[in-house]
């Protein structure tokens, strides 16, 4: 792909080696032969540069902070940042996409991406200002929370944007994440610990540059079209504008039985519980809607509770699954406190709540006793104990030492039946209820980074998409029936590709079909991309790149973590214990039917059904010869399907 003029992109990528303290600037063009931005370029670098035996916390591991050609422009939700590295939790693909204002600021500072490798001998942070990258001493920041770190780094200029880790990352906790603007988390994958292992406390960025557009008039026409689609979308208006943001979806999640309860003992909350913590309860504290950079969609709210001394941007949907559901917390103030605590200590809410809920269940079943829990009684919903455990986890105190290992490793240490209660996908804690919605489940169990609903998890069933749209988009009238297994793989594979396109463009997922069928598909992103960069691409061209990216990630997983078909199965509990209440009472993930969905999924990708690995002929069809060579070298390329 040629782009000598740097339209859309700003044209430079910075490579920082923390061991040698070197900073090297490279042209973005160098990396665009395969993919055009964000997650695409990052995953390609990881696949081609990282040796399979490198430990995620080793200095050789690479962590990449990248944007896309639409980041920082008027294309909606354009402040996104992709963070990619080898996953500390699964050992395979690590990828996270985070909002806030960092991605756009990085581009205004003159960089499309920052690639960090090595390990500093002492704590440092990166200061990036108008094309200058300086490695600064972070002695005064070490030990500080993400909130304190951000406040200190913003003292010089309040427009500086900061990403940082908290004590959890410094202490190499598996559920540690990276935090931007106090509340936006690059969650999952243990990225906080990866930065901690590099002794990299934070990155601060301030930019006064500009992003040029190849065809400004045509670009604005494409922007207006997308803006119009969003403004006219009933999903956006009803769910994200006059509400508390994504938290509003809790009602639908409960109706659809995707709200986990007490470590997945159920996927539905009773009416009595729901009323205690429904979005309305929080509305009295809301002072305004909050949107991230250039977002016409409001993801959260700001809460002020003066009598409790609480001022914070509110939480989103995942927090309802995690700390309200999986741990059965019913106290709204404590729920907000857990959100503040996780963000400031730099803990991912999905992973941290997962391992804590596991400990609660073991206590309930008598596998753990007070002797193991530092004298604490782990009673479901006890907010004081839960808040205490969050701190212990971040600082590895007492039982926190065990919990810091993540649910898979911790369950191997405890043994006995504790492994059955460790609810994870490829070693990473599960956040969502998945028994009732089969397409949603398939996307989550096959997600390359190990769970999460932000890859292939289709919401077509939860949205009850009409048979007409189902036929038009996927040739299947049942796509809107959440508990039907057949045909869902098609939607999952399509959504996977669309998400890859969105991540490569460097914008947010909430403008896409994933959120509502009336929203954008690849054609709209292609129009934005083509007019911004001057490289003409159709929606199909972009979707093909999406498919290639999926194959790059699959190859990374095969080589680095050796995942097989069995690793794409849901946790045992969800295949054996049905949902106990709600509209979808009795639903579970039937093993045989899940296997059939997986068959269909691998077939659509052209992967081997026995191992789930990639086949030569499918990769040849995509022209991915370098991936063939890499897989062949490792002896993990399937020549013939069995």
């Amino acid at each position, binding site marked *: 792909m040629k782009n000598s003029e740097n339209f859309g992109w700003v044209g430079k990528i910075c490579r920082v080696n923390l061991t040698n303290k070197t900073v090297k600037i490279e042209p973005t063009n160098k990396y665009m032969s395969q993919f055009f931005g964000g997650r695409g370029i990052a995953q390609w670098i990881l696949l081609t540069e990282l040796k399979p035996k490198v430990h995620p916390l080793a200095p050789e591991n690479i962590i990449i902070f990248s944007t896309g050609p639409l980041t*920082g*422009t*008027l294309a909606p939700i354009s402040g996104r940042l992709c963070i990619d590295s080898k996953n500390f939790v699964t050992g395979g693909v690590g990828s996270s996409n985070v909002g806030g*204002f960092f991605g756009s600021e990085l581009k*205004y500072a003159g960089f499309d991406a920052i690639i960090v490798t090595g390990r500093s001998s002492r704590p440092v942070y990166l200061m990036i200002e108008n094309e200058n990258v300086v490695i600064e001493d972070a002695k005064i920041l070490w030990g500080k929370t993400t*909130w304190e770190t*951000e*406040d200190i780094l913003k003292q010089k200029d*309040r*427009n500086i944007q900061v990403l940082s880790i908290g004590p959890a990352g410094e202490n190499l906790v598996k559920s540690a994440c990276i935090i931007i*603007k*106090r509340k936006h988390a690059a969650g999952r994958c243990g990225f906080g610990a990866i930065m901690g292992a590099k002794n990299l406390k934070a990155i601060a960025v301030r930019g*006064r*540059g*500009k*992003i*040029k*557009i190849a065809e*400004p008039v045509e670009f*604005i026409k494409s922007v207006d079209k997308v*803006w119009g689609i*969003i*403004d006219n979308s009933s999903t956006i208006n009803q769910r994200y*504008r006059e509400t508390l943001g994504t938290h509003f979806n809790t009602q639908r999640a409960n109706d659809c039985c995707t709200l986990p309860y007490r470590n997945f003992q159920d996927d539905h909350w009773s009416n009595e519980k729901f009323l205690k913590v429904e979005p309305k309860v929080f509305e009295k504290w809301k*002072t*305004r*809607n*909050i*949107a*991230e*950079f*250039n*977002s*016409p*969609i*409001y993801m959260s709210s*700001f809460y*002020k509770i003066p009598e409790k001394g609480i*001022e914070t*941007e509110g939480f989103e949907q995942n927090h309802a699954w995690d700390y309200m559901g999986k741990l059965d917390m019913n106290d709204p103030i404590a729920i907000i406190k857990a959100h503040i605590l996780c963000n400031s200590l730099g803990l991912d809410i999905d992973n941290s709540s997962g391992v804590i809920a596991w400990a609660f269940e073991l206590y309930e079943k008598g596998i753990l006793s007070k002797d193991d829990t530092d004298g604490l009684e782990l009673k479901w919903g006890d907010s004081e104990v839960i808040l205490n455990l969050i701190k212990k986890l971040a600082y590895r105190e007492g039982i926190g030492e065990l919990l810091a290992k993540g649910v898979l490793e911790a369950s191997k240490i405890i043994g006995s039946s504790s492994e059955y209660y460790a609810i994870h996908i490829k070693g990473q804690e599960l956040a969502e209820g998945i028994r009732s919605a089969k397409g949603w489940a398939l996307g989550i169990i096959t997600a390359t980074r190990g769970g999460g609903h932000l890859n292939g998890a289709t919401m077509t069933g939860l949205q009850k998409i009409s048979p007409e749209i189902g036929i038009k988009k996927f040739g299947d009238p049942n796509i809107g029936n959440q508990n039907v297994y057949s045909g869902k793989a098609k939607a999952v594979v399509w959504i996977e590709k669309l998400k890859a396109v969105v991540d490569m463009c460097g914008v947010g997922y909430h403008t896409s079909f994933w959120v509502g069928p009336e929203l954008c598909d690849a054609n709209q992103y292609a129009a934005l991309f083509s007019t911004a960069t001057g490289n003409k691409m159709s929606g199909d061209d972009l979707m093909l790149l999406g498919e290639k990216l999926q194959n790059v990630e699959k190859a990374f997983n095969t080589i680095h973590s050796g995942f097989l078909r069995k690793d794409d199965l849901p946790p045992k509990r969800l295949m054996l214990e049905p949902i106990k209440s709600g509209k979808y009472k009795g639903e579970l993930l039937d093993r045989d039917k899940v296997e059939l969905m997986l068959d269909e999924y691998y077939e659509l990708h052209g992967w081997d059904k026995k191992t789930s690995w990639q086949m030569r002929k499918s990769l040849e069809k995509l022209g991915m010869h370098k991936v063939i060579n890499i897989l062949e070298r490792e002896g993990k390329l399937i020549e013939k399907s069995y």
Partner: protein
Amino acid sequence: MKKVIKREDYDKKIKRKTSYLCINLNRCTGCKSCEIACSFHFSKVFSPQISAIRIWRSNVSGDIEISLHSNCDLCNKEEEPLCVKYCAPKALIFIKK
């Protein structure tokens, strides 16, 4: 001799001067769409640095400050200022008299 200005000419002259950019701080989400739209008006690039409108949202209190530089020309020649056009929560409203 003092030039007498006709009433309709005076109104015509005043028209641009009495257009207002109304700001409703409570509705603002702090997304900065107005900032980048503004820079596009000035130079067809995206760069908050050259924008006449600047938004700042406090992480601590959630409070928002909106500053308007005196070089704002209310997007002369456009149907409405671009900051207003791309303000999703309608915190910015253009009143043309």
